[in-house]
């Protein structure tokens, strides 16, 4: 059984980290090239369903009217809880935070449930612009995707254990 234990550890080491795989896509599109002063702004939120426990990533694309990317603007994300305007969060969106360096990204933790008003403020050479959207934050819940990789890992371990037992049963007596 020690050997099976080793198998289990190895498989766990392979599968369990995948359960926390960072999203490399853009997420849920909230704004699609909307006009914000002289700019065209697109915005995505990740994860798709935001809970109070999640770290929310807001990715912003800023383009001029000719659809060329603006890479040197100052992009600020402001979040206000709709039911209580004194609850606010603010974060600078930067290229460093973004996986795609054409975009700006800010991590935010919205720790109260309810509807939040997210405002993107852009300040650049062409002038200022703002765009906003609403986002619902819910209580933390068990998402099935969190359990997918560990479940697959455990299934693989169970299959291997079953085969190991079958093999031992079928092995002729006296054979090494």
């Amino acid at each position, binding site marked *: 059984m020690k050997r099976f234990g080793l*198998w289990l550890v190895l498989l766990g080491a392979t599968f369990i980290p995948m359960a926390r795989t960072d999203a490399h896509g853009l997420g849920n599109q909230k704004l699609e090239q909307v006009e914000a002063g002289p700019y065209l702004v697109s915005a995505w939120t990740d994860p798709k369903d935001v809970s109070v426990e999640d770290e929310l990533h807001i990715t912003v694309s800023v*383009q001029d009217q000719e659809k060329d990317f603006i890479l040197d603007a100052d992009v600020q994300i402001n979040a206000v809880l709709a039911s209580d305007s004194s609850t606010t969060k603010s974060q600078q969106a930067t290229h460093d935070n973004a996986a795609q360096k054409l975009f700006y990204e800010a991590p935010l933790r919205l720790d109260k449930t309810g509807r939040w008003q997210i405002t993107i403020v852009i300040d650049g050479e062409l002038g200022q612009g703002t765009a906003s959207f609403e986002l619902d934050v819910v209580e933390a819940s068990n998402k099935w995707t969190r359990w997918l990789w560990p479940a697959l890992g455990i299934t693989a371990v169970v299959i291997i254990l079953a*085969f190991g037992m079958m093999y031992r049963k079928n092995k002729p007596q006296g054979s090494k």
Partner: protein
Amino acid sequence: MDATTEAFLRSWEWRWDVIFVLLTCVSIYVTGWVRLRRRGAKIANGWRLASYLVGMGFIALALLSGIGTFESLLFFIHMIQHILMMMYAAPLIMLAAPMPIGMWGLPRPLRLQLAKFLNQKSPLRQLIVTITKPGIIWMFYTLNLWMWHDAEMYERATTHSTIHNIQHLLFFGTALAIWWHTTDAAPKFHKHRTYGKRIMFAAATYFQNLLLGIYITMSPELIYTYYATVPRMWGIEAHRDQVIGGLIMWIPGGMMYGYTILILISRLMDYSEKQAQIKAKRAKLQRQQAKGIAAS
């Protein structure tokens, strides 16, 4: 260099889950290679090590570089990513004999246990042989490839990271199985794969890949409407992006199968020539023996 290209080249995402899996596989393989090399085993040669490392390098490039981060913005970048994994990384890794060499990289008790699991009479091996027969693998590979290129499935994978990871695992896993048969790599669990069978297998895989590439390239409508909603890079409109992606799948994607078929045909000709020479030699020897008997 324009700002968009510069941003693309700087967009590396150090995904530790990918790095962890790649480093684990590389360390097991290199340990096995070194152990076998010390024992003087011919299988552990320089080109196999290079083939494995280059194959793993292609996976890292496909998943961690700008190709991995911009696949959600450009369809053709996504197709390049899949081709790197399925047409370049998978055959290079299979040519490196990962199974026998990798087994030698495991701790001895684990290696022996694995060898027991995979011996000729073990149920696990029988199961592997049954589910990886060439026909079954071809069907699964084709269904998997076409299913993920359905507009709805494609959009789900592009916008949901877990589904996207499953898609990549299935693409890479089925590609490894396809190249296992095509390259006749170890472990040789199946009955002898003749050159003729391997040529037919590669041609059948090439054909369905060709059809999918042509279908995407020739489609007058935008199949993957998701790309119309994201900002366009380098001024490439969504439909043109789709045409380029289809062409990439059609030509460079199919090229690897084309090369493989040519290599296999040349080997088949060499083999037939050698067989003919052996037959001629045998016939000559028999004639000489017959003459000798007659003379005596």
